[in-house]
């Protein structure tokens, strides 16, 4: 089993993110001045994001419950409400799960259990999970798995989680632009054979200057297009790095985005 301080975001310097929350909670932070004031500010930013991402769906569900109590509500509308409420609850649950993962990554207690995983079935499962949301948004998922790519050394569930984050990101930002391609590729490096798993879209691409920042700690990014805390890509990076691998993004504005997870082959 491998553990990692997820190396994710470590290059950006320590002491913030959820780590800041722990420090603030446990260290008797002074009320004024110096690092204490900075820590409280960071804590405030984090709590604002958490509060926003939980209060939004909760208040929407609260309003929806009122609608469902209306005896005159059209049955078709009732079904739409119930479906939308399920999705909102699912989003809130995923957000809480993501938050716990980020906390573990920051605390250095995030672990993976790598074993040989066949790449084909893995990508097929990832594609199936997004079939419906792709169709709803005017996209579809395409698989490109060459025969020479066999198995990757990975914690299957964690790698799937990282792939889900990249695919969901592509579906959100490349809505209605056609295929989302999941492609596997084998590459030889000095330290052995690796497998690259690509998620490619034909959307508008990342704005100038964002390619380097998409995997950063979410609390630090200001992005008008970000609709939630944006934990997914940060977690994908943490998962890849916990495996001794990498995650990267390539994009030119107007020319789609390509995200790649590279891990050792099994």
């Amino acid at each position: 089993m491998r553990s990692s301080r997820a190396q994710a975001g470590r290059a950006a310097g320590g002491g913030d993110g959820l780590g800041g929350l722990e420090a603030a909670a446990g260290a008797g932070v002074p009320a004024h001045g110096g690092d204490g004031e900075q820590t409280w500010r960071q804590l405030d930013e984090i709590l604002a994001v958490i509060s926003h991402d939980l209060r939004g769906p909760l208040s929407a569900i609260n309003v929806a419950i009122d609608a469902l109590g209306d005896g005159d509500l059209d049955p078709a509308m009732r079904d739409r409400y119930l479906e939308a409420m399920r999705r909102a609850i699912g989003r809130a649950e995923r957000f809480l799960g993501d938050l716990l993962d980020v906390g573990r990554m920051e605390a250095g207690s995030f672990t993976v259990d790598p074993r040989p995983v066949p790449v084909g079935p893995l990508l097929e499962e990832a594609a199936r999970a997004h079939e419906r949301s792709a169709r709803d948004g005017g996209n579809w998922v395409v698989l490109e798995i060459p025969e020479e790519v066999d198995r990757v050394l990975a914690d299957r569930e964690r790698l799937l989680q990282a792939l889900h984050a990249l695919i969901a990101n592509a579906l959100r930002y490349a809505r209605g632009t056609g295929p989302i391609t999941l492609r596997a590729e084998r590459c030889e490096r000095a330290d052995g054979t690796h497998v690259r798993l690509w998620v490619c879209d034909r959307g508008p691409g990342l704005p100038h200057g964002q390619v380097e920042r998409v995997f950063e700690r979410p609390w630090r990014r200001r992005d008008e297009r970000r609709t939630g805390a944006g934990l997914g890509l940060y977690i994908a990076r943490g998962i890849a790095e916990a495996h001794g691998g990498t995650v990267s993004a390539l994009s030119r504005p107007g020319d789609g985005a390509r995200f790649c997870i590279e891990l050792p082959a099994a």
Partner: protein
Amino acid sequence: MAERFHILHVEDDDLDALNVQRCLCASDAVSGITVASDGVEALQLLRSGRLPLRNLVTLLDIRLPRMSGLEFLRELRADPHLRHLPVVVLSTSDQEEDLGTAYALNVAGYLLKPLSVERLRYCLGAFASYWSAQEMM
């Protein structure tokens, strides 16, 4: 009395869209609601001719994928055929930067997404009453 008005609601959250739709459809002043899930889809709708531009008010979220609400506003104000359209923001963002940018781009109002049923009804009721009294192009 002014004519009834149509609403283009730009919102990526389907539950929020349903809640707003239910509140506003109860108003006699509203002739209909069209939902777009982001700025790109909203601009496509406005430019396609599928929406009547006369008596149209856009209700706009800020945090949207693909093209944010503020990016949509910049595009709208730069388009000679669409620049006159009234836009009211309905967002959870209370950041001063968002408010300042939105007002600089000539929004006609900025509503914070209410967290309770009563407040949502009050805000959207006031919105509908105000626009039902306006003369629009």
